[in-house]
């Protein structure tokens, strides 16, 4: 009995030495993380993302025919009032599916920065203010915006009839007859276009709107598969959490120090959580409006728009059951925290996506970090930030870490 206990002690001591030796030979001292931190790091890894959650509001979301049609529509400039603007005009595949401009430029200039569409299938809310609640309804917003695509529902239905009839009808059934319809009419167009739309019968308006909705559902099917591949950070986490492999993907000591600040004193992890490094929620972080711009109330207005929206999850164009619309049913509808609150952007590939802020207010990552360090008051509502008091070296380390989040963008091959 006693010798058994001694054996156990000797075994435990040997095991401890072996483990210590292993850590010393395979990991730099800065790579030693607590069990709690390792759990957090795993939760941030792209491996934790898995496939995007289902979108019950779009029954064509996984249909390869919709992916193929949506891809062609995404690049089609005929879907605009001047024949020059496609989705890809602002969401450039070579630029992380965004445009690198402070404000988006379609047929006019928007009031906000173009958001990337990469990884958006993981989000319940769209746009900076979450005024849409699905990828397909998001795709419809710019099409009817006077400063983005600038077109109307009858115009878009005729583009489908002329350019995509066969593919469309295979998926969605027969197109309505459009021969006698005005070329450009819609409920969100200019005065003449709205008047023409109002003059149409309910049945025709409904059938044209269904074509419009199906354009959105096809584009969403294409966008659904656009996501991020593993970054240096993800490879680092993979080696940390798999002790049988050598730590092949090292981060520099500055990058690791930046990661520790990200989880700790920098408090970045409070909002930049999960594998997409965003909580997909809305926060007031005291980013001032652009000089001369109209005050932007952010989520306070966006939530009213999504609740009233024709194309929301609970609407008649959605394929979801009411019980599948929990995010909208249980949405936070009001409250001071919504004023000037904007959706947390993903930090994946963030170094490639300057300028930053909902209206491109910050030219560089260094300026963003300086803002978070100082935590100025909000011009409206109440900023959630508090000064961080980080040193210039620590800010540099945080930026170094953010640059490790660069990875490939994966675009599905459409058949």
């Amino acid at each position, binding site marked *: 009995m006693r010798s058994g206990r001694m054996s156990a002690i000797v075994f435990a001591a040997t095991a401890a030495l072996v483990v210590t030796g292993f850590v010393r030979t395979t990991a730099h001292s800065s790579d030693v993380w607590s069990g709690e931190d390792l759990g957090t790091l795993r939760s941030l890894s792209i491996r934790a993302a898995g496939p995007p959650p289902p979108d019950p509001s779009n029954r064509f979301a996984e249909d390869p025919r919709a992916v193929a049609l949506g891809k062609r529509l995404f690049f089609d400039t005929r879907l605009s009032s001047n024949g020059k603007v496609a989705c890809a005009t602002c969401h450039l595949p070579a630029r992380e599916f965004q445009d690198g401009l402070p404000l988006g430029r379609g047929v006019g200039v928007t009031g906000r920065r173009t958001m990337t569409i990469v990884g958006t299938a993981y989000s319940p809310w769209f746009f900076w203010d979450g005024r849409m609640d699905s990828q397909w309804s998001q795709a419809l917003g710019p099409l009817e915006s006077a400063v983005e695509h600038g077109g109307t529902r009858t115009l878009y239905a005729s583009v489908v009839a002329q350019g995509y009839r066969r593919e469309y009808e295979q998926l969605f059934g027969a197109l309505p007859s459009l021969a006698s319809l005005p070329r450009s009419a819609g409920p969100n167009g200019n005065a003449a276009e709205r008047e023409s739309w109002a003059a149409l019968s309910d049945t025709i308006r409904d059938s044209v709107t269904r074509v419009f909705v199906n354009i959105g559902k096809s584009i969403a099917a294409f966008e659904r598969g656009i996501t991020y591949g593993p970054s240096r950070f993800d490879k680092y986490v993979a080696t940390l959490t798999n002790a049988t492999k050598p730590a092949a993907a090292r981060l520099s000591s500055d990058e690791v120090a930046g990661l520790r600040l990200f989880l700790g004193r920098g408090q970045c992890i409070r909002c930049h*959580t999960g594998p997409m490094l965003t909580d997909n929620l809305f926060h007031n972080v005291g980013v001032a409006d652009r000089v001369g711009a109209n005050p932007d109330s952010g989520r306070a207005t966006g939530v009213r728009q999504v609740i009233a929206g024709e194309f929301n999850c609970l609407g008649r164009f959605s394929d979801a059951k009411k019980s599948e619309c929990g995010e909208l049913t249980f949405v*936070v509808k009001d409250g001071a925290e919504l004023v000037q609150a904007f959706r947390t952007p993903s930090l994946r590939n963030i170094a490639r996506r300057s300028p930053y802020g909902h209206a491109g207010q910050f030219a560089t990552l260094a300026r963003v970090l300086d803002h978070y360090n100082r935590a100025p008051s909000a011009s409206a509502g109440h900023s959630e930030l508090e000064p961080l008091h980080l040193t210039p070296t620590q800010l540099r380390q945080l930026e170094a870490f953010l640059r490790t989040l660069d990875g490939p963008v994966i675009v599905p091959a459409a058949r």
Partner: protein
Amino acid sequence: MRSRSIASLATFATTSCVIALCIAATDAPRRVPVVPCTIQESWNREVVAENSRNYAPSRLTDGGKYRVTIRPPDDRVPMRTLHSWILHVEDMKGVAVDSATICIDGGMPEHGHGLPTRPAVTEALHNGDFRVDGMKFSMSGWWVVKLTIDGPPGPDSIRFNLKLP
């Protein structure tokens, strides 16, 4: 004499069990409509020492009128995912409360913000169980879920603490 007593007892027990089973079989869960109800706490920044927080999932309300048990799915709170809870409510005699107006809200006192959703009790199920839909937690750390309950024993409230990994 003794064997007869045992036989009577066995008969009584069997009969009772049969009756109980019949009651259970005919008394299918009754879904009682609930009164829509919300509370909105202001989650001002608040510091409470870790060792003074009670993390028990089954507790008495502040005024001692109810015993409430919170049951997240599989006893584990998922992160960043919309999910449902079951609340079990009993009065002080251990009798299930089937009819009560229950409001729910939650937040992070240390961070000064609420839940990212506005959950609600959507169904009174049976035997003191109430379904809560729209629960969602956006980050790890210390969360507080506050309930106000107004049933036959009167109004009362309770704050549950959760520590999410």
